[in-house]
């Protein structure tokens, strides 16, 4: 039973070894080696990676998509195992990215044009129970609405995974909010709770970010904190609380591209195209909705977008 497998296997290996790859030394695909683009587990990123990949393929490059952990991918980018990371969020990946850029083996490829919005968020149906929202000053009056047996009399705020930072404990203290911050471990856990509460029309106050399908699918509003400034985070005297920093909302964060440093020499034209990649929140939000809410395939959605917006991506290739 095993034998024929061996025979077939060695036959195939023999065939593969007997096939010298003839590479045409051409101008634009400077090398036929596949450019490896990383894929993570949120849809927007997968779509963007595929848009980039499709554009590179149009230019004549070979492209491979590699599933990689968002943060562990830097090990691969530094050693040249991976080449392009299309989304690195200031809000979540800045520290790891800075550490990696310092090695000199990765390069900052500039902003994508998307901006990460993240803030406290609640479903619209809670406005009845808590009419003062979205103003943050109304939060304390509603603390009981959001309380659970474990946090009572304080309200429960479900925050981002600890690894994603966000200074919510400091914010609660600086603004004198009667809330307890509970950290979720992953996105999936976070949104499971939202789904559960939303189905039951139960109170929930949690951290949400965009671009993402959640604020598209579920109706809700962001809490309006005093607007973010750099001073607010650095200077305690700024803002409503004269003694503490973080007495304001969260900053918008850039979303950048990162690439392996060797890319510029190996695939100069592709390097330029990745640098030029640009997409905006509304546009990607629409594509995310098509995939996550309408159930279309990423490949189809990307192909459609390429067909309808040739001007957008053709300019990157020049």
């Amino acid at each position, binding site marked *: 039973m095993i034998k024929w497998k061996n025979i077939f296997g060695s036959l195939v290996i023999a065939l593969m070894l007997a096939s010298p790859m003839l590479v045409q030394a051409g101008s634009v695909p400077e090398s036929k080696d596949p450019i490896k683009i990383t894929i993570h587990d949120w849809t927007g990123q997968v779509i963007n990676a595929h848009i980039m990949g499709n554009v590179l393929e149009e230019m004549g490059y070979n492209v491979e998509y590699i599933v990689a952990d968002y943060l562990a991918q830097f090990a691969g980018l530094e050693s040249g195992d991976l080449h392009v990371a299309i989304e690195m969020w200031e809000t979540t990946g800045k520290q790891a990215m800075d550490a990696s850029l310092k090695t000199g083996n990765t390069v900052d490829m500039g902003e994508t044009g998307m901006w990460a919005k993240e803030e406290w968020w609640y479903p619209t149906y809670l406005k009845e129970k808590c009419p003062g929202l979205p103003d943050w000053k109304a939060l304390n009056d509603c603390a009981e609405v959001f309380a659970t047996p474990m946090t009572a009399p304080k309200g429960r705020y479900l925050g981002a995974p600890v690894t994603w930072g966000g200074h919510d404990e400091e914010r609660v203290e600086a603004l004198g909010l009667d809330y307890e911050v509970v950290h979720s471990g992953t996105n*999936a856990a976070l949104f499971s709770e939202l789904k559960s509460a939303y189905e039951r029309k139960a109170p929930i106050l949690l951290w949400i970010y965009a671009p993402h399908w959640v604020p598209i699918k579920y109706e809700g509003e962001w809490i309006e904190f005093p607007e973010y400034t750099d001073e607010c985070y650095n200077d305690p005297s700024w803002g409503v609380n004269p003694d503490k920093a973080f007495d304001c909302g969260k900053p918008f964060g850039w979303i950048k591209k990162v690439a392996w440093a060797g890319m510029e020499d190996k695939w100069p034209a592709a390097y330029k195209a990745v640098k030029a990649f640009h997409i905006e929140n509304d546009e990607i939000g629409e594509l995310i909705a098509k995939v996550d809410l309408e159930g279309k395939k990423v490949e189809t959605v990307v192909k459609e977008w390429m067909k309808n917006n040739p001007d957008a991506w053709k300019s990157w290739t020049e």
Partner: protein
Amino acid sequence: MSLHEAVLRKETDLLSSEERLKPRHLRTLGSLAGMVAIVTAMTLLARQFAWVGDYPDAWIAPFEDWLNVAMKWLIHECSFGLFTFKEFTRSLAWLAGWPFKLGMGLLIKGFDIALSLPVAGRIEFHLPHLSWVGVAGCAALLGHYLQGRRLALISGGCFLYLALFGQWASAMETFASILIAVPLGVIVGLLLGVLSYWSKTAEIIIRPLLDMMQTIPIFAYLVPILFLFGFGPVSAMLGTVIYAVPPMVRCTHIGLRAVPDTQLEAGIISGCTRTQLFLKVKMPSALHQIMIGINQVIMLTLNMVIIASMIGAGGLGYDVLTALRRLHIGRGLEAGIAIVVLAIALDRLSQAATQGKVRKKSFSMGFVYNHRYSLAGLFLLVLATMLGSKLAFVAAYPEDWFITTAPFWDGLMSWININLYDPLYAVRTFLLIYLLVPFKKFLLNLPWLAVIGVLFFAGYRLGGWRLALIVLFPALFPAVTGYWEKTMYTVYLCGIGVLIAALIGIPIGILAAGNARSAGTLNLILDTLQTLPAFVYLMPCVMLFRVGDVSALVAIVAYAVVPAVRYTLHGIRQVPVSVLEASAMSGCRRDQILTKVQLPLALPQILLGINQTIMLALSMVVITSLIGTSDLGQEVYIALTKADIGRGLVAGLGVACIATVSDRLIQAAAELKKERLGLT
């Protein structure tokens, strides 16, 4: 010896063990009293001296920095003269990548072949991948060959599920990596097991290593592995093998140890050389235990599929994660079941392969008859694959034919959520307020010196000064490195998890031992629990119990209950029939047989089961941190975000320390018990 005499002897045996029980109870009481005394003393002392209560920050040793320096050296500078360590590991990864590429080509991608021939010039063509019809057919044929129609149906049906539910492509990707990871794990495990059997020194070195491999969360050493072995399926496979090998080593070791002397002597008398004795007497005799090891390698490998997919292996794990990210619970479940189905097919086939009947070759029937299975399989594969190039639905199962039960599961989940949320939530609150929170507070408030004192004392009572010292060092590690609080949090979470798992698992094991017919179903449930990715049931859990310790607890219990059941079952089954008959004749009622004969005799085995339960509970730490607990797993995850290798490794080693301490203490307790029961 007449029957009467035999019964009498058994009776006196029982009696004498009853007598010996008395001082033992006193001993246990003495131990408990000692522990209480230590805790009280330390708590009182802690009021006077703060450093008794909380480990002073000034005493924390910078282990993290040392590890960072060491890893940096290993990754960037370590060199063997001609080549560096990194080049060495990279070439290993390159080698290991080939069989995987071959598997991928055969099962999913096909091969692009370009030949330059002197006469015909350049030929390019695409060799298609194997058709799903062929692969599923071969699985059924293999089942029939190994055992018969039943296994043919099972393994063929498993593969058919993958096609019907639209999981084929992903499943084949997972399959390709498993086909390499499992044999690798089995071979490495076998070698290490034999090594630890042969050499006492090797055993002493290997044992703590096994605990570490099983319990250090993979994220702790992920970054160095990615640097050394590159990004992609090979690193993922490596991580998988590290996790899946320990039970194989343990089982091989135990199996070889358990070969009866009579068999060995028979082998020696028949003139076996050392090699023959090993290969023809010891190995076959240990085979049953080794098969349990193989089963565990398969199960654990498939259990790691989810984590591997976070690193760079695509396949079913990635599908599960993506589906759950979008809260498509039904789709996640289907992809999760596909993992279970693969595990079951592989496990049943491999079990049959070693236990199954040997088909004798018959010279009269000729080559074709003797090779009818392989020929039929080959024919089926080639035919189906060739047909596939004409008929698309043979090559790849068409999307229009997919069936899905996802809407049903999503609907069910919503229904439960809307209608049953309140009572379930009440249970959660009750658990938290009356069990979890008090226990957590108790552990976190214990003076660190009290914990170490108790462990040291327990080590001394169970195994003398030697064990006490062995336990002391891993117990000190979390304090010295400054992770005491997080470690105690982990102990609290896993401790309660183990307690609940044991309370559920041991009775189930006992019940199942008395009911042979349920064995098949039970096995199926246990296999499912072990391989269904925790994420699949975790997200519904989070919906019902919210983010927090209760959801984490469900994950731990569901996973860790398996060894508690298996070992109890095994322990009770192995009580000799003669003993049971003797006790029945001496007038024991059924409940007396259970409590006075079966359970005490099975106790060492049950203790080993608890030991494994603890290991598995600790290995879930990596998953619980993804729900949102503040244990060592979270620390490991934070370290990963900050690209701090040392921090992650230290936190990971903290988990391994908990494992080592509990492992040594429980093993010693089991040995002591065995000795007293006269089992050794």
